[in-house]
C-alpha cells in the first residue's frame, strides 16, 4: 500500500519502550489516507492503542510488524445528546466482532476498527452509505461552527 504523503518526516514523541505517539498526517475525514497510514504504521510494528486518539495525537503500542487492516467508520450524531459518547454501543460492537473486526478508538465522529485476519470480510461494503455519513458529518460540523460563531458574536 502506498505511503501517505508527509508521513515519513513526522515528529515522533517517544514515550518509552512500549508505546509511541505520533501526529496523524491527515484529518480523519480523509478516510482512505488515515486507514493507509494506520496500516503502514502496523507494518512498521506500531499498532493503534485502545482509545489511542487524544487531542489529535495517536498513541501506538509497539509489537511485531504485520499486515493488518484498519477501517474508519463515519458515525454522524443522531441527536443533541449524542455528544455524550463517541464509542460504539454494545450492539455495534457485537455486529463488528461477529464480522471479525474489533473497535479500537474514536477520532472525532469516526470510529476506528482493526482486523488481523486476512480472510475476514470487508467492513464497509456500501461506499455510498459511508459517503452519505461523511457528508452528514461535514454538514453537522458546519452547523456547529456557525452556532459557535453566532454565540461569539452575540455574547
Amino acid at each position, binding site marked *: 500500500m502506498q505511503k501517505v504523503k508527509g508521513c515519513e518526516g513526522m515528529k515522533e514523541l517517544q514515550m518509552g519502550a512500549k508505546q509511541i505517539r505520533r501526529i496523524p498526517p491527515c484529518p480523519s475525514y480523509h478516510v482512505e489516507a488515515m486507514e493507509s497510514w494506520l496500516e503502514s504504521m502496523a507494518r512498521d510494528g506500531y499498532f493503534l492503542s485502545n482509545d489511542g486518539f487524544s487531542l489529535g495525537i495517536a498513541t501506538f503500542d509497539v509489537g511485531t510488524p504485520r499486515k493488518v487492516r484498519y*477501517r474508519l*467508520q463515519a458515525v454522524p450524531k443522531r441527536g443533541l445528546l449524542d455528544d455524550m459518547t463517541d464509542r460504539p454501543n454494545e450492539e455495534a460492537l457485537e455486529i463488528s466482532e461477529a464480522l471479525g473486526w474489533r473497535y479500537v478508538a474514536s477520532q472525532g465522529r469516526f470510529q476506528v476498527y482493526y482486523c488481523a485476519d486476512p480472510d475476514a470480510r470487508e467492513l464497509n461494503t456500501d461506499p455510498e452509505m459511508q459517503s452519505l455519513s461523511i457528508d452528514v458529518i461535514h454538514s453537522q460540523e458546519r452547523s456547529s461552527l456557525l452556532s459557535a460563531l453566532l454565540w461569539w458574536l452575540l455574547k
Partner: protein
Amino acid sequence: MAGTRTSLTESMFYVLLALRSGPKFGVEISSYVDEKTKGETMLGPATLYTILGKFEKEKYIQEISVEARKRTYQLTAKGLKAYRDEVNRLRRLVADAESEGV
C-alpha cells in the same frame, strides 16, 4: 447524490427486506442480511446505523422499543411501499434485459 436518489442501494434494500418479515433490532438485521445473501452483502455497524437513521428520518421504519440498549425497528406503510417500488423497478430492469436476450 445520495440524498436525492430514488432507488435503494443493495444494503438499503436488504434492510427493508429484513424488516418486512417482522420487527428486528440491529444485530438481527445484520445476521438476517448475512444469512439471506450467503455472506455476499455485509452490514458493518456504521453502514447499518446510517441506513437506520436515514430510514427513520424518511419514515420508512419506526423504533418500537429499546431494551438493554437494543433498539427494535419495524417497517412502516411508507417503508413497505418503498420496498415494493424497488422490487417492481428491479423486475422492470430484468424484463428489459430479457427482452434483449440478456
